[in-house]
């Protein structure tokens, strides 16, 4: 099994430790990831698309046109939504496809709409048996609040994966790693990251509500699959504690980090020390 790897911007250029654990997990599972030269920003569905849909289409189609292997895997829900969304627009409307290719012709490229796009968690779920086989250090004592994030699920017509309001795939993977998952009321709520660009106070309010709810549910960590959500959860706890007298100290894990830990990798080689909220206290608490 081999795929082209689409890294995007946030993970490789800001949170490379998330890339490290993800690559390790795929290597362990025997799924080959090819690095492709020349990808641009996906572009960001909550950024560039919101200011210029046609530019979003053109850059997205250019990226998709560069894949020559069995399809693209991305570690980022934003990139996946963009690439699946561009495919959707291009394949739904021949006129759109013609217009996009008119632009791509200027750089001697063409996109036919056929590149398959997968989120890394989709691939983990489809290879659940292999995931189970590789667990050497089950995550006993981890009480995980799963945060799916919006773009992993919706719009369901474009994403075509899991259920938009009753998702189960990530919970299933987390349980396969030997952890327990914890239900909480605001599980499907947006983390608030996209509105940070227009109203940072509102953005903080949204993440505060989620963290409060997760704390109430007595989870001892969070699992997620999107770098924007990751930053929102991990980067803001200290600021919120300062502002509101809260005591958030909740380690935020990428799904790949949990998998890598269960596969026997050491926290240091995964770069867990780069997290703002360090997981050391949790490891001690559960004897990991």
């Amino acid at each position, binding site marked *: 099994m081999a795929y082209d790897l689409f*890294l995007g*911007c*946030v993970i*490789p*250029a*800001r949170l*490379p*430790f998330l*890339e*490290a654990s993800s*690559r390790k997990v795929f290597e362990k599972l025997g799924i080959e990831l090819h*690095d492709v*030269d*020349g*990808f*641009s*920003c996906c*572009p*960001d*569905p*909550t*950024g*560039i*698309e*919101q*200011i*210029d*849909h*046609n*530019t979003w289409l*053109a*850059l997205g189609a*250019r990226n998709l046109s560069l894949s020559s292997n069995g399809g693209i895997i991305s570690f980022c829900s934003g990139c996946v939504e963009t690439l699946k969304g561009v495919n959707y627009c291009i394949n739904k409307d021949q006129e759109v496809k013609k217009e996009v290719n008119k*632009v*791509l012709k*200027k*750089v001697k490229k063409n996109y036919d709409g056929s590149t398959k796009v997968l989120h890394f968690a989709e691939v983990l779920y489809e290879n659940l048996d292999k995931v189970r086989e590789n667990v050497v250090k089950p995550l006993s004592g981890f009480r995980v609040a799963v945060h799916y994030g*919006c*773009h992993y699920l*919706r*719009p*369901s017509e474009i994403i075509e994966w899991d259920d*938009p*309001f009753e998702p189960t795939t990530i919970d299933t993977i987390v349980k396969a790693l030997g952890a327990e998952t914890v239900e909480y009321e605001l599980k499907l*709520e*947006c983390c*608030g990251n*996209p*509105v*940070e*660009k*227009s*109203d940072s106070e*509102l953005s903080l*309010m*949204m993440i505060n*509500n989620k963290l409060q709810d997760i704390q109430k549910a007595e989870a001892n960590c969070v699992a997620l699959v999107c770098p924007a959500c990751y930053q929102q959860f991990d980067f803001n706890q200290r600021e919120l504690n300062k502002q509101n007298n809260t005591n958030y100290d909740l380690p935020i894990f990428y799904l790949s980090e949990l998998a890598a830990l269960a596969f026997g990798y050491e926290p240091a080689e995964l*770069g867990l020390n*780069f997290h703002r909220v360090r997981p050391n206290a949790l490891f001690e608490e559960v004897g990991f």
Partner: protein
Amino acid sequence: MSVINFEFRNQVLKHNASLSYCYQCSTCSGGCPVALITEGRYNPRKIIEEAILGLQEKLINEQDPNPWLCSTCQTCVELCPQKVELTEIFTLIKNKCFEAGKYPAAFSVQGQAVLENGIAIPYSKAILTRREKLGLPTITTAPVDEIKTILKETNFEKNILKGGK
């Protein structure tokens, strides 16, 4: 006073005909995580109503309600009993705000980064060192000239250089 602009209304409809199926039931606003906590500053039903009526002044100049508060969570799209593609319509409205230079500055920062580097976040020296320490490969990103050619062709370059509000 708001004036109906039929041309504007037709532009939205031409871009996304699902707009005309809205019967203003407010399911979108009831399910919207932002509407729930912004005390009227953000209300997807109202933006759709203004689009149906072609209230260009309200939507683009006054931005009331503020379309930039949409978190793009797509919950409204999923819930709408009439299958109105709300997020796509909001995107069109925001695109028009962008053309008019009325958009939050943070979008401009990201857009200029893509224009200059092909990617939204350029690789800093510190990150390159960190990547090396983590045993990660060197990434060859898109040729900047090629991206610039595309961004010129779509008028993005011209619009982004005008800057935001």
